[in-house]
């Protein structure tokens, strides 16, 4: 009896295994391969009529306010380019997935993008804590990892991560330029730091420390992105009687910082780094958070006087009307994203998309992953950014400088010329180059 039971179980198990194998053979799409064995190079994700690229953004969760608009904006610009003939006859198919700013989820969706969607390249993966978890795997898998939407210096390591490239100014450079400005304009004043407790915040603080005298810094407070209670940090800042608070925060936490200072009745000068200071995003968040807390505020009043920095042309105010890039992006926005509000995130997404289209063009008539990277390393890309990119064979860093702005009547008004600096301890120098105009039809000139 026992033997027949053993036998029956064995037969059942074998039958199950056979069924599973049959199902798998029928179900697996495409199997392995996909262009990786061509002698010319790896063209996974490229077909005769399309190029598939992917990205991960926080579409839900704590970092979604603002950042969730970047993906749709980039897609809109790609749609515009596709409608105008695409790149070398190929349409750009942009697939982006939600990782909710949760590094564990980022690992899953990036693997899905590379292994299941079989993308040609990752373009604009967002977040420092999120993307740092996938950068090793992407480089091991030899997938181009372009224009990471984060200013961590970790993307500029060509020897360690040859497939990864930055795009926006890194936080260290940003910190240096902000630091020099503050050291000059707020000499002798008490300065407090408030920053995200990861490479994003820490890189920024390192940059600030290059120029701000240690004795001026009265307190350094960090926050974890998972925890919205920043009461202890705010109390410490209030007790230190800081005149200036410099923050490297994502928009939600910039808003919490501002509301916190109001609640405590202090009014330090707020200096918020670029990624957390978009006027439209910030005033929206301030109003939403205040409403949750049961009070009504006017966002535009609260953001008045905030100092920040920018590297893309202003899309608000009188300057915006005459800027060719803003006109182009607003035109694309009108056509493909009319139901949403145009803000800094929209501009960011479209500007990144523009740069990718440029690189794809230069990758040749039959782009491969290798030719894509070669096109980037050749440098010479021009676009809407006020200072140039730093791409070269030995540098994978993006924009090399920023311009200090002050929010006046809801519009970021520049204070002085843009400055550039290096990724080490070099000086901050004003940038005197002339800005490039947008091409008439919006497609980068080859």
């Amino acid at each position: 009896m026992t033997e027949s039971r053993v036998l029956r179980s064995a037969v059942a198990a074998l039958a199950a295994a056979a069924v599973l194998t049959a199902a798998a053979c029928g179900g697996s799409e495409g199997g392995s391969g996909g262009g990786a064995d061509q002698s010319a190079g790896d063209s996974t994700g490229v077909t005769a009529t399309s190029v598939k690229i992917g990205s991960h953004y926080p579409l839900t969760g704590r970092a979604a306010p603002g950042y969730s608009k970047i993906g749709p904006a980039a897609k809109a610009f790609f749609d515009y380019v596709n409608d105008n003939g695409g790149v070398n006859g190929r349409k750009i198919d942009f697939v982006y997935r939600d990782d909710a700013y949760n590094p564990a989820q980022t690992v899953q969706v990036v693997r899905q993008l590379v292994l299941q969607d079989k993308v040609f390249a990752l373009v604009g993966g967002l977040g420092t804590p999120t993307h740092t978890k996938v950068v090793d795997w992407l480089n091991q898998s030899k997938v181009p990892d372009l224009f990471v939407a984060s200013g961590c210096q970790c993307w500029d390591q060509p020897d360690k991560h040859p497939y990864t490239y930055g795009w926006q100014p890194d936080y260290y450079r940003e910190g240096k330029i902000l630091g020099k400005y503050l050291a000059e304009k707020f000499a002798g004043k008490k300065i407090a730091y408030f920053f995200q407790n990861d490479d994003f915040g820490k890189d920024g603080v390192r940059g600030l420390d290059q120029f701000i005298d240690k004795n001026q810094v009265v307190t350094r407070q960090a926050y974890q992105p998972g925890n919205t209670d920043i009461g202890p940090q705010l109390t410490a800042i209030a007790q230190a009687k800081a005149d200036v608070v410099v923050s490297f925060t994502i928009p939600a936490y910039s808003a919490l910082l501002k509301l916190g200072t109001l609640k405590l009745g202090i009014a330090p000068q707020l200096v918020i780094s670029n990624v957390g200071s978009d006027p439209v995003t910030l005033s929206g968040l301030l109003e939403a958070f205040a409403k949750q807390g049961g009070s009504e505020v006017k966002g535009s009043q609260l953001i008045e006087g905030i100092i920040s920095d920018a590297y893309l042309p202003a899309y608000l105010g009188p300057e915006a009307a005459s800027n060719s890039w803003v006109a182009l992006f607003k035109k694309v926005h009108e056509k493909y994203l009319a139901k949403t509000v145009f803000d800094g995130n929209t501009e960011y997404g479209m500007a990144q998309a523009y740069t990718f289209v440029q690189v794809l063009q230069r990758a040749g008539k039959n782009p491969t992953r290798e030719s894509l990277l070669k096109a980037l390393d050749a440098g010479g890309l021009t676009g809407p950014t006020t200072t140039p990119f730093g791409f070269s064979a030995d540098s994978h860093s993006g924009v090399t400088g920023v311009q200090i702005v002050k929010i006046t009547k809801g519009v970021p008004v520049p204070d002085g010329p843009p400055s550039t600096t290096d990724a080490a301890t070099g000086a901050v120098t004003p940038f005197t180059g002339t800005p490039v105009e947008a091409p008439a039809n919006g497609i980068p000139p080859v």
Partner: protein
Amino acid sequence: MTSHRLNSTLLRHLLLGSIAVAAVLLLSTVLDPYRNLQLTNVAYLVCAAAGLSLLTGLSGQISLGQGALMAVGAYLTALMLADGDSGIPLPVVLLAATIGTALVGVLVGAAAARLRGPYLAGATLAFAIGLPALADYRGLAATLGGQNGLVVFSPGPPPGFTDVPFDRWQLAVSTIAAVITLILLANLMHSRFGRSWRALRDDEVAAQLAGLPVARLQVTAFVVSAACAGLGGALLAFATGLAAPGAFGLSLSLQLLAVVVLGGLGTIPGAVYGSFLLVFLPTWSASLATRLDLSRDVYANLPLAIYGAVLVFVMLVFPAGLQGGISRLVNKMR
């Protein structure tokens, strides 16, 4: 007589286990890397789900903290594999993580031994919410990496197998670990412990009167379940290369319990069906949502809605879960 029965149980389980491992290894050569990744997910969830199935189904103790115990296993693994060159062989790392989590299980079990029903559920719920937050705690944030978590340098295939692609290697390790766990649990369920636990679950007073050491049995059940969760968490850290609080939220614990009930409480196949559901249902519902081109709010919540609907349906039609339904069908056919 007893030894003959013991031999046949062990033999049967070993045979089934080896066939399962062979089948999965064969399958992994045919499937694409993403499917292998999903099967690896199933494998490590099976470890945790099987432990939970035993704890809740067999010994009658509801635990909402299985996810937190997985976190313990994952972090222990991450700490041991943090340097990449620590030199500790992988089986030792997995075993150490399992034992470490089992020790935590002793503490949890001892604390929970006095509690019953909803109070036990509440205590384990508090554990599930509180433990991952420990990573942010001021003193520990430096070692545990805070919200960002710890990166794990997963060791590659051993010498002699270095051509095997990483996804197949991870699937092989996870499957072998999961099958060993299932064999051990299946044997345990057929043993004296299994019978004692069932007695405890069905009528605690009667069991006590019959001379069973109630508290010791309950704690043992917790320890076994915690060890399974620890192994599951260790494999999760090995497979995803990351141990972060975000992976072990409350939803993981709740989903594990839900799918274990769905699959069939107290049964091994139930844990396997449940794990498959847990991995593939969100993927299917997500692709369904994109194909139907739904708005983002609906898209984000569709998997949960489908979960709920499937749970309600299965509970109405197969109260004993999928495995219960299958057993009934098989019995009817005999």
